Structure formats: C-alpha cells, structure tokens
C-alpha cells in the first residue's frame, strides 16, 4: 500500500515535468518564430551594415579604387584629429542647447493642450504641423526666411526700425546658431509635446484630485506627482531628442554649409565630408563606429540616471 501510494505520484510528476518542459521548449520556438521577421529586419538592416562598417573601418577604403588593410590605424588617427574633436565639441554644445530649448517649449505646450478647453484640437494640430515637414524642406524654408535680401527676418527687423540696415543672420556664428535653434524647436517641439502629452494623460485624474484635497499647491502637485509619474515618458522624449540632436546634419548642411568659418560642422557632417568630399570611406566608417559607441553609452547613462528598467510595474 505504502509502496503503491509512494510510487504512484512519482511517475505522474515526472510526466508532468516532462510535458511542461516540452511545452516550454515549444513555446520558445513559437516565440522565436513570432519575432523572426523583426529579427531578420534588424539583422539585414542593422547588424550586417554595422559589421560591414566595422570591416571598412579597418581598411584604407577610398570611394574609388582598391582598398588596403590597415588594422586600427583609422582609429589611432582619430584620436589626434583636431577637426573631429572640434566637431564633437560643437555637437555636444548643440545637443545641450537644443534639448533644453525643445523641452522648455514642449513641456508648457503639453500642459497647455492636455486640459480640455475650447479649440484644443486646433491647438494640438497647429503645434504639431511643422513636425510633418521634412527637416531638409524646413531647412530650405528657413534659409530663405533668414536670407538678408529676399528673406523675411532681416527686412522685418529693418522695417520695425530695430536696425539701420538688414543684418546677414547667417554670416555670424551667434545669429546663425540662434536661427537654427529656433528652426529646430519650431520643427521638433510639437513631436516632443505629443510624447509628453501621452505621459500626462496616463496619470489618473484621481491622484491629482487626492493631492488637491490634501492641500497640495499647483507647483507641489507638478513637482511631486506629475514629474515622478512621467519619468518614463520624459526618458523616452529625452533619448529621442538627444539622439536626434547628436545625429544632426541637414540643417547645418543646407542652411549654413557648415557655418561661418566651419564652426558648425557636426559629427555627422564631418563623417559625410570625410567619406564623400575627401573620399576616405574607411576613415568615415571608423568615425561612424565611434559615434555609435558614444550614442550607446549616452543612452545607457540616461536610462540609468532616470532609473528606467530597474523596477517592473
């Protein structure tokens, strides 16, 4: 009896364990099958090109003619390349300024269009409209707006009597930089606003109400309720904005051709110049790999700082 009792559950558990293992294995394969198309896309359009870029970066690879293996020479050259460091510097400066500017505009806008008020749909649409304009198109438009003779801003300043004669906004670093920042904010802020808006709308109204009943003032509610609950959204918006700014190219290429005295050469612009003006595809590839590494590090740092991915809801 005891032997029967003791022996009977054993095979059952073994069998159950077996089938569970089998089921786990089969769901594993099914899962893989589900993500296979996405993995294939990532493989073909991201992993393979990156590997090819790494391979190119180890060569002296001219645009035309034969390539030659040179090992890590492109990378050692990069360490002492003053123009690359200058481009990094400028890109960091631009990213900092433009990100702050975008958030300073987008956050109030998001708060503004979150509340149900009259014409809110209209406001949202108008603010979002520039986002659907291509960046190159927007750059061309603004290059014309900023033109000293046939443009809009300079003659306007003159008409208003603020200046004696039309200033050439794109000829000086400060004014050209300001023009580009304003253009990018005009173009991008709507997108950041939409991201932040979704975060705002995800906050349950009851929480706000409860805080209000407890006597929290408007700023206190924003600081201790809204901001902490929006951490994930802010992280997303921040990463999108910073990555986009680090990869900036069109506006500098189109509006200022690299700016007065080459002071507006971003990293991507420099990579473009090395690859397609100087025809050093190999060196351009090495620069791209370094830029990729920098972006990965910055994104990880941001996630860590905003403590995303550590706790599960």
């Amino acid at each position, binding site marked *: 009896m005891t032997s029967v009792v003791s022996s009977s559950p054993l095979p059952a558990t073994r069998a159950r364990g077996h089938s569970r293992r089998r089921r786990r294995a089969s769901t594993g394969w099914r899962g893989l099958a589900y993500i296979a198309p996405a993995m294939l896309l990532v493989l073909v359009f991201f992993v393979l090109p990156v590997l090819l870029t790494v391979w190119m970066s180890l060569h002296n690879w*001219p645009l*035309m003619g034969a390539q030659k293996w040179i090992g890590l020479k492109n990378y050692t050259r990069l360490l002492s390349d003053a123009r690359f460091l200058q481009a990094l510097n400028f890109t960091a400066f631009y990213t900092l300024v433009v990100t702050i500017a975008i958030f300073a505009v987008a956050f109030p806008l998001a708060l503004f269009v979150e509340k149900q008020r009259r014409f809110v749909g209209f406001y949202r649409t108008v603010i979002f409209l520039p986002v659907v304009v291509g960046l190159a198109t927007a750059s061309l438009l603004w290059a014309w707006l900023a033109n000293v003779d046939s443009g809009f801003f300079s003659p306007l300043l003159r008409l208003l009597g603020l200046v004696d004669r*039309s200033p*050439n906004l794109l*000829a000086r670093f400060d004014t050209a930089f300001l023009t580009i920042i304003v253009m990018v904010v005009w173009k991008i802020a709507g997108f950041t606003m939409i991201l932040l808006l979704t975060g705002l709308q995800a906050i349950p109204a009851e929480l706000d109400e409860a805080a209000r009943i407890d006597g929290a003032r408007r700023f206190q509610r924003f600081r201790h309720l809204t901001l902490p609950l929006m951490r994930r959204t802010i992280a997303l918006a921040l990463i999108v904005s910073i990555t986009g700014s680090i990869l900036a190219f069109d506006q500098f290429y189109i509006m200022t051709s690299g700016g007065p*005295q080459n002071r507006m050469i971003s990293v991507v612009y420099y990579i473009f110049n090395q690859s397609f003006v100087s025809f050093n595809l190999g060196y351009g590839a090495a620069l791209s790999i370094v830029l990729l590494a920098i972006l990965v590090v910055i994104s990880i740092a941001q996630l860590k700082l905003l403590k995303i991915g550590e706790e599960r809801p």
Partner: protein
Amino acid sequence: MTVIKTLLAATSLAALMLAQPASADTINMWVRTGIGDSFKEVVKAYNAGHDDKVQLTEVPYTELVQKYATAIAGGQAPDALSMDLIYTPAFAAAGQLEDLTDWAKSLPYFNSLSPSHVRLGTYQDRLYGLPLSVETSVFAWNKNLYRKAGLDPEKAPATWEEITANAQKIRALGDDTYGFYFSGGGCGGCMIFTFTPLVWGAGADILSADGKTATLDTPEMRKAVDIYRTMIKKDLVPAIAASDNGANFLSFTNGRIGQQSLGAFAIGTLVTQHPEIDFGVTLIPGVNGKPSSFAGGDNLVVTKGTPRIEEVKTFIQYIYSMDGQKIMAKYGSLPTRGDIADEVLKGLDPRMAVGLKAISVAKTPYTLQFNDLINSNNGPWAAFITAALFGDDVDGAFKTAQEDMQSIIDSGQ
C-alpha cells in the same frame, strides 16, 4: 491564363525593344551648374539635328565630384560628363575613365586642342579627358553705374586703389547700389577663381610649385586681404557676400553691382540674357597692378565601360566642328580649338576676346587634393576667406589656414 498571356506579350515586347538596332540612342551626360549656358546650348543644337539625343542632367557644381564618384561606386554613372578639368587626373588615376588616346590622336585637329586641358586630361601618357570648355577669370564693370557716378565708363580700372575709389562713388548712388561683389561665404571655388589672381599677378602663390607646401602667408596675400577688408569695412559690398556659398555668384547680372570679378562664361550669359546691362571687361589687376587670371574650364570624360562610347565620340566631334565651337563661344566658352579660334570669335562680342587674352597671363593650380584644400565648402581655403575677410582676427586666420592646408597636404602623401 490571361495573366500569363499578358506577361508573355510584355516580355516579348521588352525583348523587341532591346533587340532594336541602336539607331537612336540617348547619351546620358552630366554637367555642373555655374558654367553658363554654352554646353546646354550646344546640346540643344545637337539634339535638333541628330537622331541620337543627349540627355543632360545638371548637378550643383559643389557636389558634382562626390555625386559622380558615388554614382560610379553604385553603378549609376552617366555615359560621359563635363568635369572640372582639375579633377581629371584623380578620376583617371582611379581607373574610372575610358582611355581616349588612340581615337583622339586620329582627329586631324588634335594638336591644336587647348594644351592645358590636354595636359590635365593625361595620366601616365594616356589621354582620359578632352577639352570641352575654356574659361578664364576677368574683371567686369557696369558702365551705366559708372556714368551715373560720374566716372569715365570707357576707362578700365587698372589698380585696386582705383577700383576701391570707384566703388565708393558707386555706393554713394543709393541704398541698393554697391561698388563691388564677391561670393565670400565659403565658396572656395569662387574665390580661387576671382581672388587669387590678385596675388598671382604680383608673383606670389598659395601653394608651392610642386604642390607640397602651403605658402598662404605672403605679403602679397596680406595686401590682397587688406584691399577686400577695406571695401567690406567701407560698406561697399552687399552683406550677402559673407554667406554666399556660390548661389549668388552672378549678382552682377542684377544691375546694381558696380564691379565684380567674373568668368568668361558670365560674359556669355550677360551678352545673351542680360542685354540691358552695359558692361566693360578687363583683366583682373594684381595687388601691384600686374594682371593675372585663373584658367579653368571643363574636360569631357567618358565613364569606363559605357556601351555608348561611339555615340559620345560623334557628339564630341560635333562640339569640335565650326558650328559647335561657334555656339559654345556665343554663350561664353572660349574656343577649345586653337586652329579656328579667330574665325570662331569673328562676329562675336569683342569682350570675349578679353577672356582669350587672359589665357596668356593665367595660371591653373595643379594638386590632386584640390577638392579638399580649395573647393570644399569646409576646406581650409574657404574657411580662410570668411575668417580673413569678415572675421576680427586676420593673423589668426592666416595661421590656422596655413596649418590646416599643410596638414591636409601632408596626410595625403
């Protein structure tokens, strides 16, 4: 069933089209912008009189080289193109151009083709580029504005002191009238063409003869920079000059610019499209009065392996015919065939002859790094121009540019 039938029909139709004899072919050609209309017009005339057609694509001149190089790498290159002659050696050295030596030497007039073009079209004793258009830089002044300012419209200025003084008088005419213009905002190509003659005339140069040393910082260049700076400071130059990357190079055609250094191509454009502008042409004076000029222009090169090489050759022969040469000259390209040059220019605007005369005092820099050093919008030469002419620190501009140029030259060897 019907689907298959349609498919079959379509493929056989395609096969038929492919099998047709190449009686009316289309040659794809590229031309850079900013060299006037001469090539466009000669293509128009050719298309009107021949079964073969030339399809022309205009490419912004600052991007032609990289676009062509990427097109070759991607297998999308045109059959032939009009290429700034300075780049011919680099593309020939990379093995991307068709060798035209034997055919070209069989042309009866081969020996009278523009020698500097042929020299730059030759790489290791083989010929890869043939002269297509010749142009030199010259100095133009607006006679109407001269008259209004009380200056003698027939007297060509011979020194920069004179040019500056005239510019001041013209500027005094009104708000929108300026004494002088140049594309200084990062257009290295414009400035090597119009500004270096100031130092060449005085015997200096920006590169050593072998192209291995940058010799930017000379007393002559300092003086040239000073002349332009003075004119900018006196407000004789429109503000757009500081950010003009070449798009406004032909500002002279708007009739409100008193004086400007231009190319022979622009003379053609002015004569044919802006007859309302009464202008004179002379050589560009050097800083101490002795004139000089930049001899440039385009070579016609053929992409290696093109199936339409015979058609391209027929087209080239048309360009070299009397008809072709006359059309080219009418729109501002100086004759590429020396043996018939006088006859080609006969009956044309006498101002074209000044462009021809400039050849005798003209220079062409020879360096394989021309794009990196000079023409690139972000090269040291373009940066030097903006910094030295519009910046506050002239010494710094000289120092930086001299170092940058040398480091590019060194890294290329």
